[in-house]
């Protein structure tokens, strides 16, 4: 029994090891098969990437939010002990992922940021990713300390309340950020047609392509 368990843990470790290597190799977000545009030195004043706090990925890598710069990001704040709403948000993001045309899908980063600074360690986040079969070529899960979480939640406008037992009540929203981290869309209705979000993502990518063809840096 214990042996079987250990074997399973080993398998998981191997799977995550592979993911960690894959995401490390990917480095900053780039669109496969496309030359990336040079990024401006500073981000717009309304960019989420003005936040300088440090975060840890499910693979244990320390990153700044600004390392997500370069492509559209679909993001939400959740916590893994969440009984019903957070799995719903996650599934909803996976539906967006699946509904995108393949070329767009690979250009988007899907990011879950944990609200639960106390319990959602990187390994807990990795477990959650496995449970939900998240494609780690596209997904990133982030753990931060209390102030990092509060700061990001306040930038995005995610209200939350953490009770004595460490559980959360929180507002529900999926955010679409452009390549510079400016919020372009916010979906609070988990039953809204997927096309609203996917069309916006495709639109953002098309704008990018237009700029690239004109060779305009931005």
């Amino acid at each position: 029994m214990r042996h079987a368990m250990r074997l399973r843990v080993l398998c998981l470790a191997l799977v995550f090891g592979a993911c960690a290597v894959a995401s490390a190799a990917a480095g900053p977000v780039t669109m496969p098969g496309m030359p990336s545009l040079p990024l401006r030195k500073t981000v717009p004043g309304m960019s989420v990437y003005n936040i300088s706090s440090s975060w840890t990925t499910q693979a244990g890598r320390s990153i700044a939010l600004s390392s997500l710069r370069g492509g559209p990001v679909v993001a939400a704040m959740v916590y893994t002990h969440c009984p019903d709403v957070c799995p719903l948000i996650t599934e909803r993001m996976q539906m967006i992922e699946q509904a995108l045309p393949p070329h767009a899908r690979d250009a988007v980063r899907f990011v879950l940021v944990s609200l639960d600074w106390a319990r959602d360690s990187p390994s807990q986040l990795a477990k959650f990713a496995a449970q939900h079969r998240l494609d780690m070529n596209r997904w990133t899960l982030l753990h931060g300390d209390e102030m990092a979480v509060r700061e990001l939640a306040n930038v995005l406008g995610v209200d939350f309340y953490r009770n004595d037992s460490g559980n959360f009540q929180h507002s529900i929203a999926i955010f679409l950020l452009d390549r510079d981290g400016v919020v372009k869309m916010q979906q609070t209705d988990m039953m809204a047609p997927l096309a609203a979000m996917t069309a916006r993502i495709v639109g953002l990518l098309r704008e990018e392509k237009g700029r690239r063809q004109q060779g305009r840096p931005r």
Partner: protein
Amino acid sequence: MRAVRLVAVLIAALASVSGGAEYHGADMAALPAGSYVPFYVRDSVKPGRPPAPAFRSVAVRAFRLDRFPVTNAQFLAFVRGHSEWRRSQIKAVFADAHYLAHWQGDLALRKPADGERPVTNVSWFAAAAYCRANHKMLPTTDQWEYALANRGADTDAIKRRILSWYSTPANRELPPVRSGDVNRYGVSGLIGLVWEWTLDFNSMMSGPDLRGAQAGAQFCGGSSLGATDPGDYAAFMRYAMRQSLKASYTVSNLGFRCAMP
């Protein structure tokens, strides 16, 4: 001999470092652990369970709280050292257009007397950054309310004073921070000077975006029954004020103070 001198220098250096740390706590009051009854009872988050009983008191651990709200002079010293928080430099995502609007410029107050007045027109982000730079944090709403509750002293007198303050026109000049009454904890000016940011000012969850788990915390209709003392209009105003804020807002009578564990 030289080694001895080196050790002495090291000890002196260490002493000055710890002296510096003490300095941060110098103008702070130590509040003992205790409990208080918040104005508003939050629902239990556990699904399928009935809401928490009313009149629930909340335990608060011992902590330290600035005796006074942060002054313009103190905030000026902060932005001198942290240029990204100056009026001309701040990112739009961290503060609205009225950030420090009552100052003469990036590094200038309108008059010297403003130095001793509470700093206002600061966003939550700026307030949190100031506290962090001083190795402190914003107080939680529970900590702030616990300090105000003042071990139950003069509850009715406090309510009366709050209401008379609330009815003071907002365009008057703010008094200096050291002019307020000192309570039993040694904390001054919690009421009568400015409203104050708290770490979790927006944690009451009255937004429209809630679904599922008991999303009750609202101020209107049936859920206002969650108030522990519906007659406490002063507290109602305070909670409603906090709830109406967004972290980038700056308001001419909203300041802050910092806390430490």
